[in-house]
């Protein structure tokens, strides 16, 4: 399958944080959920993809092109929603339309105004008069209105109520169906991703922990709930991490089917991305 985005061995060093050999691939037409706790490196990775930060090592290819060499060409086809970064709030959607017409060759004013209408956003109101949810919708509409082939979304649903979140996620899904494009969506609200993401890439403390299809992850991985005695009978190679709670052990296993065949432990729960994140971050290895 053709990859729209390829990140290989991306490294970036700050005084108090290091991005270590981040590598993942986003196939064409897919939605990838990019998960990890706050400060794990999601935003830094997205900023590197966009060259907002520059002094990094590694290779990034978008649409098969080097992101530094062909930056201008590539950016014509990328739509972006960045956490807390947008147009100055004294501007109106009308101003955004005028601005973007002069920036993107493919800017589609009709699509922009149709979307504003669909989401009941008034074109002549200043952004500062919008609620957080309305503002987020405007950011997303702005990112979609030049028919991008790749959407890079950094925490696009954070701070939204469940109804607004559902609307926004629906918007992404219809976008991917209509436009045949790909989305890299970073979020720490993992329940959103379980519904729409085809792939999950998990970053922790600047390192990619796993990058798999969502189905593979949710079907194969599992949480074994067992006693201390049962836990001690499990071989180290059969689990990834474990957490000791007040009454039991919660053990993250990479292949629940194989585990069931090997061990006579009854309780193996389906995993959620939340469980996965918590166990990967807070769990112990030995």
């Amino acid at each position: 399958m053709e990859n729209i985005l390829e990140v290989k061995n991306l490294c970036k060093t700050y005084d108090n944080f290091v991005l270590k050999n981040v590598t993942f691939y986003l196939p064409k037409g897919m939605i990838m959920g990019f998960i990890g706790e706050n400060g794990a490196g999601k935003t830094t990775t997205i900023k590197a993809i966009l060259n907002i930060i520059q002094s990094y090592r590694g290779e990034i290819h978008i649409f098969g092109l080097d992101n530094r060499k062909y930056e201008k060409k590539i950016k014509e086809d990328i739509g972006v929603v960045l956490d807390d970064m947008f147009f100055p709030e004294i501007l109106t959607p009308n101003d955004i339309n005028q601005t973007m017409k002069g920036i993107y060759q493919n800017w589609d004013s009709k699509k922009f105004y149709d979307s504003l209408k669909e989401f009941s956003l008034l074109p002549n109101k200043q952004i500062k008069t919008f609620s957080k949810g309305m503002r987020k919708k405007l950011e997303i509409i702005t990112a979609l209105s030049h028919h991008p082939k790749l959407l890079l979304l950094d925490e696009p649903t954070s701070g939204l109520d469940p109804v607004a979140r559902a609307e926004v996620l629906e918007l992404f899904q219809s976008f991917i169906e209509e436009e045949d494009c790909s989305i890299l969506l970073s979020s720490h609200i993992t329940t959103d991703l379980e519904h729409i993401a085809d792939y999950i890439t998990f970053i922790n403390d600047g390192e990619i922990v796993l990058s798999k299809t969502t189905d593979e992850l949710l079907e194969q991985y599992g949480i074994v709930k067992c006693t201390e005695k049962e836990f001690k009978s499990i071989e180290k190679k059969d689990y990834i991490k474990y957490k000791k709670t007040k009454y039991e052990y919660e053990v993250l296993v990479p292949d629940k089917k194989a585990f069931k065949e090997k061990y006579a432990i009854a309780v193996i729960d389906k995993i959620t991305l939340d469980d996965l994140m918590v166990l990967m971050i807070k769990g112990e290895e030995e």
Partner: protein
Amino acid sequence: MIGFMKKDLAMMKSNFKLLGILIVVYTVMGFLGEMDISFILPFMCVMIMISTFSYDNYNKWDAYSISFPDGRKNSVKAKYVATIFMILAISVLTLLLSFLIAYAKTKTIPYEQIFVSMLGTIFGTLLVLTFMYPIIYKFGVEKARIVIFLLVFGIVIIGRILTQYLDLSFIAKALSFLENYLVILVILVAILMVFISYKISEKIISKKEF
């Protein structure tokens, strides 16, 4: 670049009312024969443009704009072009008003005097832009204010010391032959300093990380 310019000019919209009031005040004061405040309007334009940096900064526009094609380059270029465009537009308006006021009062128009005065004003505003913009791009609006204050303070102190202890009249004498070319010289120096300022700002932004 056009898109970025439209955005900067749109941000000035909310200040147009203030500019309109200043134009009325200037016209009334001119007719009443009070002091000449024609320099205020172009200076106001620069100040309003500088205020747009604060809005950009508050909403992290600079980082966001890098996600656009040629975002780094065009955002800087647009800021300079929009500012110069506004300065020239308001200067032409002020010039026409000055002609009108002079003619209404004396039935004659002192073209040369008004031109020279306006040229001085434009040069002064471009000088502010030349120094302020690279400093703003480097340090941000808040720190830039302190840097500018220190810079002006330093220049005044050094100027005072130089004039107090050294006889600088030889410089004036040596440059007296340029008197006839003053207008052309001022224009050339203005273009050169703005160009250098723009190149410095462009370089700062091309390397800046957000």
